[in-house]
């Protein structure tokens, strides 16, 4: 998927892409945090047919909805494709040995064979967290692997 990026001096940035079904969609990011979701005319690719103005808060909510759905979808896909693969949501509670420590420290994949694929924090999702991602109490960790592997990660992260 190709995304064109154009600067709009004095306003912000514009990103435009064409969907697989041939609709042109754009997002205008204003310096002020406002986002315009623009759907272009079917017949005239120069003209915005609809412009939806989102406040920065609304834009954040929309991004989250799209993002969260994507992670869940990807997990469902994994289940469908691989027999015996399990996903598990493990909470980090206060008192977990990894509360306040980076993901890399768990060495989860080496020790259990299961992978940490996402972390849900405060209603948002951090997909594919990097090894330097620091856990906090209240995080929900999404783990994917075999039944044994995911159980081992759960035990690793659980309060002792």
């Amino acid at each position, binding site marked *: 998927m190709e995304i064109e990026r154009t600067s709009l001096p004095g*306003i912000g940035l514009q990103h435009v892409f064409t969907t697989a079904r041939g609709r042109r969609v754009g997002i205008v990011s204003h310096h002020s945090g406002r986002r315009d979701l623009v759907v272009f005319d079917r017949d*005239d690719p*120069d003209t915005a047919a609809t412009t939806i103005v989102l406040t920065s808060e609304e834009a954040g909510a929309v991004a989250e909805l799209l993002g969260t759905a994507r992670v869940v979808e990807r997990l469902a896909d994994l289940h469908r494709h691989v027999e015996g693969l399990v996903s598990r949501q493990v909470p980090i509670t206060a008192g977990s040995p990894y509360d306040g420590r980076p993901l890399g420290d768990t060495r989860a994949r080496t020790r259990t064979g299961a992978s940490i694929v996402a972390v849900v924090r405060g209603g948002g999702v951090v997909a594919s967290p990097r090894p330097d991602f620091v856990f906090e109490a209240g995080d929900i960790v999404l783990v994917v692997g075999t039944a044994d592997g995911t159980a081992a990660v759960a035990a690793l992260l659980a309060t002792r």
Partner: protein
Amino acid sequence: MHSTTQLIELGAIILGLGLLGAVAVRFSVSPIPLYLLAGLAFGSGGVLPLTTSEDFVSVGAEVGVILLLFTLGLEYTADELVTTMRTAAPVGLSDLVLNAVPGVATALLLHWGPVAAVALGGITYVTSSGITAKVMGDLGRLGNRETPSVLSVLVFEDLTMAAYLPILTTLLAGAGVLGGVVALLAAAVTMGLILFVALRHGEVVQRFVASPSREVLLLKVLGLTVLVAGLAQQLQVSAAVGAFLVGIALSGPLAHDARQLLSPLRDLFAAVFFVFFGLHTDPADLPPVAGVAAVLAVAGVATKLATGWVAARRAGVGPAGRLRAGTALVPRGEFSIVVAGLAVGAGTNPRLGPLAAAYVLILAVAGPLLARSADSLARAVAGPRGRRA
């Protein structure tokens, strides 16, 4: 008592502007022509001539120009300006030539002299970026493909103004060609310096101005802007340009905060500025220049349509979009009045002020209307052959 009538007059002016602004919002038109009309009504020869609040209004008008240019500068970062300068130069130059020539030629034909010609060229050249940006936002055109072309023309014009205003100021002061060159050099050096500081050492300015208190931030930013503007005026670089450059030097979250804090002040003093300009124009002087203004307005519409057409075509936009780009550029407003204000203040041809007022009155109203009807115009021109081409 003198001071009490002053307050009553001032309150009445501002309240009147508020009511006019409400009318402008109600019919979603630019308030600028209404403010000008208000100024005409209050001024010498108007229906309700003011007597006591002139002093405040004249200082307020100066602050208004400074804040107009400062908030304009805030919109841009130094990076954006440099990039646009490189990419938009061909279109920007044709915009300059196409749109300044009618003004220059008219002034010369009327035997107003070369200085008035330079001023009138500026008046017909510069699009009102305020009106244009607002119209494009209101019509939901910010996402359109022609929009970046329109915006880069506006940025180029604003940069040109930064070079033009110092030249005009010097010419108006009667310093001649040599003085004009010196002023241009001074402006170029100042501008280069500020752009350099903004690009390389932006954080120094930011750190100086930044404050967690909105009150402190407001006072620091306003003080710095007016101070630099005053120094620039002392150096014959024009106060407006100094303020514009301060705006450019501020960027990022600080620019955002400064914009939020200063926009209300800008709205107040800019309105005062338009009234001030109207005050100094005798309504009786308008009819004699109405014919010239109408001709210039028609020429101004045509030349901006051509500019927009060329700019959008370069970006690979279809005919409908090219027409939209052209109509978006038609409105003239605050900067034409700023230029005319400078010229009138320096005592060029007395008919220049009324002419500029009439010109802006026509185009500030006609421009947004044209922009609104651009799509139906395009369909009418293209006919049944359709909108794609």
